[in-house]
Structures are given as structure tokens and as C-alpha cells.
């Protein structure tokens, strides 16, 4: 590990992203299409970044050259196509920054910095993966599913939401998924109940789990698995933290880590460099979930 501003906390816990891979590209918006209520897919012509992006990594998009909003916004790669040089992001409209992205027209250019962060660990030998997502929060999964398929991995797609229309749309589920399991709290589609309710039997059949969604859902998934007989099942989660820079200098994206089982003192990691994808066991979930859902 290279010496960085983060040296106090990162020691032995998680590697850090390789900043040498990140590129600043002036990317041209080529398409913006609605996927579901309040979910859009925005595609950019960004060949250099498309070449490099891996599942779970993210980009910092400079939404606006005037000073409001001031900071870039982080988005996980949803697609990265080396052949046509495009990258795509799933865009949920939350506040000013995402609203301005939503307002881009094909031909508009924005500066994109990426790839940043550490993505998902891909399997060394093919097996079976569960991709667990809460609601529409599938952002990094299309790219992950594509790469897994290329590796010959079988994929189970596990999606939970309150009602059917908050589920990730069936027609968008990436090709090559072997099994689709859906939960809705009101029973309007798939099994009735929270995602955690029927999860364990399912997970008995997989070699690893990738999860993405609101932090509290990720925490529930971790809790369920780690307190079960599947405690040793590899689990990687993609988490979110407010980001000032995305590359380790502002120290704004602090996340509470737990040392590898031995050290019980929480330590501080950086979501942008040791994350956004982390082994579930590395996070201090209790501290993490103390933080307000409404960050800002």
C-alpha cells in the first residue's frame, strides 16, 4: 500500500484503489432514457474511460461548471463498452446535481473522472453468484453481470422492494441471469416479505454474494449471513458516502471499518479508495448505520 493521507486507518484492512488508472475525459452525452419512475440511464461517449472501467468502480461527474452544485457527483458504472467507447450510468433524481444531469441533452459535454475506487472481486474459478439489490438500486449490476457471464459464472438475481412497481424492471435484468428471485413486502410480485426473509435457503446454493442498495439493507443482509451457518460465504457490498473528491484527498468520505476480526476498535476508512465495494466483514455496521439516511 502506498503511503497516503489515509495511512492511519487503512493498514492491513483493505487495499486502496489505483489512482494511476483514473483519467479525466470530456465526455459527450449520447443518450438519456427513462428506465423506471425516477430512474434514467445516461450514456456518454467516453472511450478512454470505457476501456478501463470495471464493475463496482465509479466515476466523478462534473455536473455544472458554475459553482452550484460545487462538487462532482459519484456514479457507479452501469455499462462500459470498449467497442463503441461508451459508458452508462443509472441516474436516480435526488437533488440539484442529479436533476442537472437529468437535464443534459445528447451532444452536451461534461468532464468525467474515472475509473475510481475499488470494484467487485471477480471469481477466479467459475461458480454461482447471488446479486442482491434493494429496490431500483442496481447501478453497478448490469456491468457486473456481463463480466460474470464472460467468466462463465452462473448468476442469481435477487431483488426486493416494497411493491411491484419499485422492483427493478424485469425487462432490464441483464441477459445471462440464470435465476430471478423477487420479494415484495406487499406481495404484489414474487414472494411476500422483505428480501432478508427468504434469503438464506437461496444463498446455500451460491459461492459468493454481491449486494447493492441502501446501507441499512446491506447491513441487514450482512447481519443475516454472518449470524447464520453461511458466515464464511464471501459477501461484497457497494456502499455510499458523501464524497468531496473521490480520490482520497478530502477525507470526507470516511467510513467506519472493523479490523479483520482481530481488532475490535473501529477505524476510519475512505469509501472512495478502500470502497465503494468492500467485504461485508470489514465494515463496522453499527457505526455505519448510526449515520442519518438523509445525508444532506
Amino acid at each position, binding site marked *: 500500500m502506498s*503511503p497516503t493521507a489515509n495511512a492511519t486507518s487503512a493498514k492491513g484492512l483493505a487495499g486502496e484503489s489505483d*489512482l494511476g488508472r483514473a483519467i479525466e475525459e470530456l465526455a459527450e452525452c449520447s443518450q438519456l432514457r427513462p428506465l423506471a419512475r425516477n430512474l434514467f440511464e445516461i450514456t456518454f461517449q467516453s472511450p478512454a474511460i470505457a476501456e478501463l472501467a470495471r464493475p463496482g468502480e465509479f466515476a466523478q461527474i462534473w455536473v455544472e461548471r458554475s459553482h452550484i452544485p460545487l462538487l462532482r457527483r459519484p456514479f457507479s458504472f452501469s455499462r462500459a463498452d470498449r467497442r463503441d467507447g461508451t459508458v452508462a450510468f443509472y441516474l436516480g433524481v435526488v437533488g440539484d446535481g442529479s436533476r442537472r444531469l437529468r437535464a443534459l441533452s445528447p451532444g452536451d459535454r461534461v468532464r468525467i473522472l474515472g475509473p475510481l475506487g475499488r470494484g467487485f472481486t471477480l471469481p477466479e474459478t467459475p461458480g454461482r453468484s447471488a446479486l442482491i439489490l434493494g429496490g431500483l438500486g442496481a447501478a453497478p449490476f448490469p456491468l457486473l453481470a456481463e463480466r460474470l457471464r464472460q467468466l462463465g459464472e452462473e448468476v442469481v438475481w435477487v431483488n426486493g422492494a416494497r411493491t411491484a412497481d419499485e422492483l427493478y424492471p424485469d425487462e432490464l435484468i441483464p441477459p445471462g441471469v440464470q435465476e430471478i428471485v423477487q420479494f415484495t413486502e406487499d406481495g404484489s410480485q414474487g414472494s411476500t416479505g422483505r428480501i432478508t426473509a427468504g434469503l438464506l435457503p437461496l444463498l446455500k446454493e451460491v459461492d459468493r454474494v454481491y449486494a447493492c442498495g441502501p446501507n441499512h439493507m446491506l447491513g441487514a443482509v450482512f447481519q443475516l449471513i454472518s449470524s447464520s451457518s453461511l458466515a464464511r460465504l464471501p459477501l461484497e457490498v457497494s456502499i455510499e458516502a458523501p464524497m468531496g473528491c473521490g480520490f482520497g484527498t478530502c477525507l470526507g468520505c470516511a467510513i467506519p471499518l472493523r479490523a479483520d476480526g482481530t481488532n475490535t476498535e473501529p477505524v476510519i476508512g475512505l469509501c472512495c479508495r478502500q470502497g465503494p465495494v468492500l467485504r461485508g466483514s470489514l465494515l463496522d455496521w453499527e457505526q455505519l448505520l448510526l449515520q442519518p439516511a438523509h445525508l444532506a
Partner: protein
Amino acid sequence: MSTLSPPFDARVDLGRGLVLKNPIAVASGTFGFGFEAEALAGISHLGAIFSKGTTPLAREGNRPPRIAETAAGMLNSIGLQNPGVEIVCVDYAPRWASWPVPVLVNVAGADIAEYVMVVERLTGVSGVAGVELNISCPNIAHGLDFATEPAAAARCVAAVRAATDLPLVVKLSPNVTDIAEVARAVEDAGADAVSAVNTYVGMKITLPSRRPVLPGMGTGGLSGPAIKPLALAAVARVRRAVQVPVIGIGGIASPGDALEFLVAGADAVQVGTANFNNPHASREIVEGCLQYAQQHHLRRFADLRWQELEFPGAAEEGMRSD
């Protein structure tokens, strides 16, 4: 203007032998210890690097959330997360030693002894080109920041001055009634240069939670374009108060912003928050400033200074704001 105009000299002398190749530096806490930027965007264009605040021992920093955006600004409450001076000297400084850019270590402490301890440790370490004292730290003995009391600031600076012959920059807090008074006090106590400004105390509230976003008392330090007009006024005021070089800081995001600080009396500037949304900001600013200097046939950047700061007179008459 003669066709054989003298060549442009971009260098800036900060005193005690510290000469920057150009007046554009990067601000403490916005550039880590330089390694991220080295990997991402390069550093060789810079006049100087000011490191993240460094304390005697490692600090974990505050609990999150630590940052929050405001209109044209951001608040931070990092809590001085840093690996401690030992790691800085042993792991970082040796790498700096080979860089074409001087690195000044920003120093924070809980009392005078801690400042002295850190600076003593840094003195003589190859790769450490100087120190910048962040005196906007709560003074454990007296409750208030050193930076808010001229006498306390002077005591702190004098103690550090006695302990080192490194170039010594003292960074001023703008959260005071009269920044000129503090500037004069630290100049008298032996500062080689002063830098201004550090962040302004601010707060962001969210309605859904009916409480501040940031933890604890809810306050953080405001930086970014929102504070530029405040920082320019502070720099002009400090410029009138002291003889030593002044380093301007606050909301610089473009070459024009940097040049405005030079007009307002700064000898050099630090780019801060802009490094976050644009890792190429400092390079773009260096290039833009050099280009401006050429296009306008400057001999040195100091030519830009508002004449009224050099020859006070007519402007002293009583304009007032409301």
C-alpha cells in the same frame, strides 16, 4: 512598452531562502500529502504544496458525515485526520525530497508544546521545505483558538520560531474581529510569511432531520467560491498590516481568481477546495496565470498589485457599507 522588455520572472521569495518557481500553491487539507495528486494529475507545475495538518500523534478524525455542500461552498469537519508527524518524516518526506516542488508541512497542535514538538521533529528532515502553522486550533489551556487572540498567537509563533530555522508560514483564521492585528502579532513574533484565510465557521441544517448535517455542535469550516470576496478583503487588510509575504487563500478556482488575489496584495496563493472537483485545477491555474503575464507584458506578478495598497492615499476616504 519597448520591444526589448525585460523577461518575465514568475518566482516568489517567501523568505529564509524559500523561493517558489511560481506563486501558485495548493492548500492544506485539499491535497493530502501530495501522493494522490502525483498519481492522478501530476505535481511538477506547482509553486509549492502545503500538506494536510499534522499533529504529534496519529488522529482518526471526526465521525461522519464530515462534509456538506452549501451555495457555492462546502463545509468540512474532518477533525484533523492524519498519520502523525513520525510517519510524515519517515514515510513521506523521503519521497518529497526528490520532487521538483517544495512541500511545507501544515502543523496543528492542542497547545504550544505540541506545535513545538511537531516542528522540532520536522526540522532538518530532508524533503521538508518549511512549515505552515495552523493556529486556528482550539487552545486547550485557554479555550479559544490561538488564532483569535493576538497575544496567544504571538506566544505560539515565538516558541516555534525559537525551535526551528525552517521557513515559517503562519496561517490566519478569518473568524476574528481584526485579522490585521493577529497578522502584525505573528509577524513580530518571527513569522517569515502569513497565509490567509483558513475556513469560516458555518453550519448546514437539514429540515427532514431538524438538525445540523455535521456531527457534534453542527459546525464546520466553510470554503470554496462563496468565501472568495471575504478572503479578498481579508488579504487586502493583512497586506496593509505586515511587511512579510502574504499568501492568499479562499475560493480560488480559476486563473482569474488567483490573479485577483495578487491584485488584492497577495504574493502567492493557495488553491484549496477547487482541487476536489477538479484535480487539474492547479495546473490550469498555473498555465492561465503565466499566459496572462505574457499577454500583459508583466515583469513579475507583483506588478498586478492594486496601486492603492502600495501608495495608500486617496482611497482612505470614508466609504462605508450598510
